[in-house]
């Protein structure tokens, strides 16, 4: 009595094995399922979080496109570094405190802006970062700096919306002594 598995046996004649084909529709469905499994696969450790290096590189590229004037890129904003205290009304309106210097934004900030991250370079280490909330977009907007004091240079200013998307950026600036 022939085995029910005989068709998969390695003892079959060569010409029978060559005749085995895969139903194209089945193959397509199989490939689709495998692709879905592959797409759903998340390697250990990534946990759906952005890779910090790739995220930074992609954001640098976005800033670069903004500098080159591409229309769909984050917008470059003009900013001046000013001493603290010269703008009490704006300061009170924005509810900001402390600090010995600030960045005065000369252009209109995108309406979706929520916060700014200001960076100051540190020799041989990661840059010093300070996050500044932007509660009021009424010009002129001042970004009050506390950690980054006036004797520290600024390497970049990035402005994000409520979905953490980069919407604008500012210039680098030397110490304001």
């Amino acid at each position: 009595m022939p085995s029910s598995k005989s068709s998969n046996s390695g003892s079959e004649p060569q010409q029978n094995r060559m005749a085995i084909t895969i139903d194209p529709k089945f193959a397509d469905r199989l490939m689709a399922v495998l692709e879905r499994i592959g797409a759903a696969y998340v390697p250990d450790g990534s946990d759906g979080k952005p890779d910090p290096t790739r995220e930074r590189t992609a954001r640098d590229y976005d800033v670069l496109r903004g500098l080159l004037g591409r229309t769909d890129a984050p917008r470059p904003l003009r900013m001046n570094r000013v001493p603290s205290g010269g703008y009490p009304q704006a300061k009170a309106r924005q509810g900001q405190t402390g600090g010995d210097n600030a960045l005065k934004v000369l252009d209109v900030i995108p309406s979706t802006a929520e916060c700014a991250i200001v960076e100051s370079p540190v020799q041989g280490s990661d840059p010093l970062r300070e996050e500044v909330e932007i509660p009021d977009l009424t010009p002129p907007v001042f970004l009050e700096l506390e950690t980054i004091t006036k004797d520290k240079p600024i390497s970049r200013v990035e402005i994000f919306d409520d979905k953490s998307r980069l919407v604008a950026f500012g210039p680098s600036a030397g110490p304001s002594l």
Partner: protein
Amino acid sequence: MFRYLANQCTPQPEGKSKLFLVHPLQLSRWLEVAWAAAPSVPVLGTDPAGSQLGSGSVIQDFDIPETLLLDLEPGIDLANPGGFIPHEDRHTNLLLWDHMVYAYLIESTGIYEIIGQILVRIVRGETLGKLSPETLQWARATEELLFRSPPLFSIGGVESRARPDLRIARRNAYWRMFGLDLPHPLPPSSAAGGDAQPPWKLDIGNGANTSFTQRWNELLTQIWIGYENKVNQVGTNATDAEYVALLCQAIDDMLGNRRQGGLLAREELYYVAALGWCHLTVEIDTPLVRDLQATATNPAERLAKLGERVGMAPAPRSRELFELAEPMSALLWGIELGLFNTGPAAAALFLPTVFNGPASKLNIEVNRIIDLWQSATGTRIKTATGSPAGVPGARLAGQPLRAPSPVSAPVGVPAAAPAAVTATSSNGSRS
């Protein structure tokens, strides 16, 4: 450069034509301001600030003192192109000019020669028919900015008795940076005959990056391997982000060698500005395009129609060259800024920021560069890959070599035209 300003005109895109109505002296002075503003760009990448120009001090070395700069205030008012506004509201903030490759790719279309011939017709006679006042303003600005010597002592002063022909000077810069010639010959009025070497290859010593194309093709190939395997977790995966980083470093070093001490920085600013002006002329249906009945849906077709009016033909792959210029400029700046000099950073060229997440703008642009580069040059980057279902061992055909064109090839003309960048063609010359 000038397109940066034009992008701020309203409404977009038709407002871009307002820039042609600005006085050419203001536009020329604006280049001075744009040069001086370069040090305030934010710090990007791993290289020291300004090193992408070959020297951190090249801007200060060549800029005008601030007081003189204020005396030369351009005062461009984009809302009122004939007006003047004080410097507090100047439209120059943070900007970086495009990479030299932008000028090379735009000039490879043959646009400079075609616009030059149109200008000759406009200023010498009436063979182009009745022209609008706006077109005559464009012609005046084009003649002043592109076809005469730049103002004395300006940052764009890269024409002199030492290098009297800007066409040859630009070819010299392209050859040194990329080891590439323009695909069309010099017009007879500029061609200096008799020498075994073309004039733009004389006196450069060993300072030409003749292996640029080879490194660039290899980089795009490696990026594509990474792109193909971005979700591959089980099969053979030839992706090597460290090697991609090495290739980026090699190109960074290669281009940096030509920029040592700040060489070619002023030339790059001026050439990019000039070719950007040409690009802007055909970017939309400008007054010139309308007057010469050359309206179309893309710059390449407008250029072809303008060329017809003066008996010239642009490069066969102009469409790809126009579309490639901006993203390739950004990517090469990124490489020269050192954005991709480590393996994890180089992986950002083909991997999204989140595993299996949406593609970043960088991913999208790099993929587009590969498509356009292989279509423009005829160099296949996206090789055939994978196996059709049910046919083990067989190979799927890759995508077609050439990008789809809206214009049907005439009967009897092969779809694959000669390479636009590497081979000599008839673009920019009389047909």
